[in-house]
C-alpha cells in the first residue's frame, strides 16, 4: 500500500452459495447459523455437510445473538488500503452461546477496552444496498 493510495471500497462478501444465504439473513437483521438436523450441532462457516455425522440435512437456526470476546487484534497500521482511514480498529473473534465462533468487530468499544471474555451481542450494519454485516456491541448488562 503506497502512502498516497486512492481510497478504495472495502471488500465485501460475494453473496454466493451458502455464504450468500448467511448474509441474506443478516440483511433481514437475523444472525443464523447452520444447525445439523442429524446431530443438532451448530456450525460456522457454512458448509455442505456435517463434519461430525456426515448428514447433509440442516436448517438455518436463529442465534441468541449473545456471545463473548474470544480473542482480538488492534489494527493500527492497515494492510489493505480500504481500511487505512478506519485505523485503529479491532477484528474480534466472538464465541457465541451456540458454541460457534465468528470474526467481526465490536463497534461501541475502543480497542483498548476490549477484553477476552467480555459479553457482547449482535447488531447489524448495512454497508451497501445488498450487504449487511453482523457486528457486535457490548452486552446491555456490561455497558
Amino acid at each position, binding site marked *: 500500500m503506497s502512502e498516497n493510495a486512492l481510497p478504495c471500497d472495502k471488500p465485501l462478501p460475494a453473496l454466493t452459495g451458502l455464504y450468500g444465504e448467511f448474509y441474506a439473513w443478516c440483511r433481514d437483521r437475523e444472525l443464523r447459523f447452520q444447525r445439523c438436523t442429524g446431530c443438532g450441532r451448530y456450525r*460456522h462457516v457454512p458448509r455442505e455437510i456435517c463434519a461430525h455425522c456426515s448428514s447433509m440435512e440442516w436448517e438455518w437456526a436463529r442465534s441468541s445473538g449473545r456471545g463473548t470476546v474470544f480473542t482480538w487484534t488492534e489494527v493500527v497500521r492497515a494492510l489493505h488500503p480500504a481500511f487505512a482511514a478506519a485505523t485503529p480498529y479491532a477484528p474480534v473473534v466472538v464465541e457465541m452461546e451456540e458454541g460457534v465462533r465468528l*470474526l467481526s468487530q465490536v463497534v461501541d468499544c475502543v480497542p483498548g477496552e476490549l477484553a477476552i471474555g467480555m459479553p457482547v451481542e449482535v447488531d447489524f450494519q448495512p454497508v451497501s444496498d445488498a450487504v449487511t454485516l453482523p457486528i457486535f456491541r457490548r452486552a446491555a448488562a456490561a455497558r
Partner: protein
Amino acid sequence: MFKDKACIVGIGETPFCRKPGSGLSEMGIQLKAAVAALEDAGLKAAQIDGILPFPNVGKAEAFAASLGCENLRFAATLHMGGAAPVGSLRMAAMAVSSGAADYMMVPGGWNGYSGARVRETAANDVNSIPGGEIARDFYMPFGLTAPPQWYALMARRHMHEYGTTEEQLGAVALAMRKHAQLNPAALMHGKPLTMADYLASPTIASPYRLLDCCVETDGAAAFIVTTVERARDLRQKPVYIMGAAAGQPYPADEITNRADFHRTGLTNAAPEAFRMAGVTPADADFAQIYDCFTFEVIQQLEEAGFCKRGEGGAFVEHGGIELGGRLPVNTHGGLLSQAHVLGIAHVVEAVRQLRGEAGARQVPDAEIGVVTGWGDFGDGSIAVLRR
C-alpha cells in the same frame, strides 16, 4: 519410510536485498539460486528429474525448460504457504527413496520487497489467500486482511491463557537480530537491537509491533535432494534426512472455529518426524524455526515438543534460543533479521550448520538439527537432519 535414505546434497542462495530490488524477475532470481545449488552439489541441470516449486512463484515446467532439465518426471507444488519448502523437503525424500525421481530440486524465492508486496497480494487475490472465499466473505469485510492480523489473534489468545508477555515476544526478535550480527549476508547485519528499541517500535496489529514482523525481501534459495547412494559420488558431504512430516490444523481453511485453538499442523507432524528419526527434541543441537512473526516461534517450539504448551515464553527468555543457549534458533537471523525467502533459507542454514560451514555463527560440533515450516492458517512441516 525414508529414514536416512535421502539427503541434501546441494544448497544455493542469492544475495538478499530490499531497495532498490533484485533487478531480476521472480523466475530469474530463483534460477540463480537453483544454478548455485547445482554448482554446490556438482550436478548438471540435466540430471534434475524432479522439481517442487513454491506456490505462486513459478511452475515446474518453466524451471525445467529454463534450466535444461530434459527428463522431468516428478513435479508438484505443496499449497502450504511457508510450510511448503520443508514439506517439499519431505516430498523430495519420499520421491528419491521410492525411485520416483533421482535428483529433486526445491527452489523458492521472490521479489518480496520490490515486487507485489505480501500485504497487498494477500488482500487482493482470493486464490492466493489461505481460506480463499472464507477469508473473502467472513474475514476481509471486517478488516482481517493480512498474515500478522491472522496470527495476532492466536498470539493474543496464548498470552491470555498462558501469560506469555510482550517482552517474551521481544526476546525472539532480539535473538534473531543478535544472530544476524554474525551473518554478513543478513539484511539486519550491522543493526543491533535492544529491548527498548523493540518496545518502542510502532504497533502493526497488536500484540505485534513492527519488530515482531519479518523483513520483506527480494531473494531466493534452493536445495537438492537425492539418495544416500547417489550422494556418495557428489561434491559435498551429505546432510541426511532422518525424519520429516507435515500436517494441518483443523479446520485448516478457517481460523476461528478450532476446538483446540493452539493446535497447528506441527502438533501432529513433529511427533511423527521425531519418531521416524528415532531421536527426541532434546537431541537437537539447533533448530531453524519458521519465524514470520515472533509468536510463531514460541508456538512452534511448544507444538514441536521443545517445551510444553504454555512454556514457550519462558523458553525463549534469557538467551534460551540464542547461540550458547539451550537451543540456538535461527542461527542465520531467520525471516525476522536475515531475510524472508519463504523459509527455504532455513533449510540452507541447517545444511550449513551440519556441514560445519556456518562461520562465526557455527553451533560447535552440530550433529542433529531441526527445521520447520509454518504457512497459511497454521499448516506445519518439520524435518530432522543430521550430518
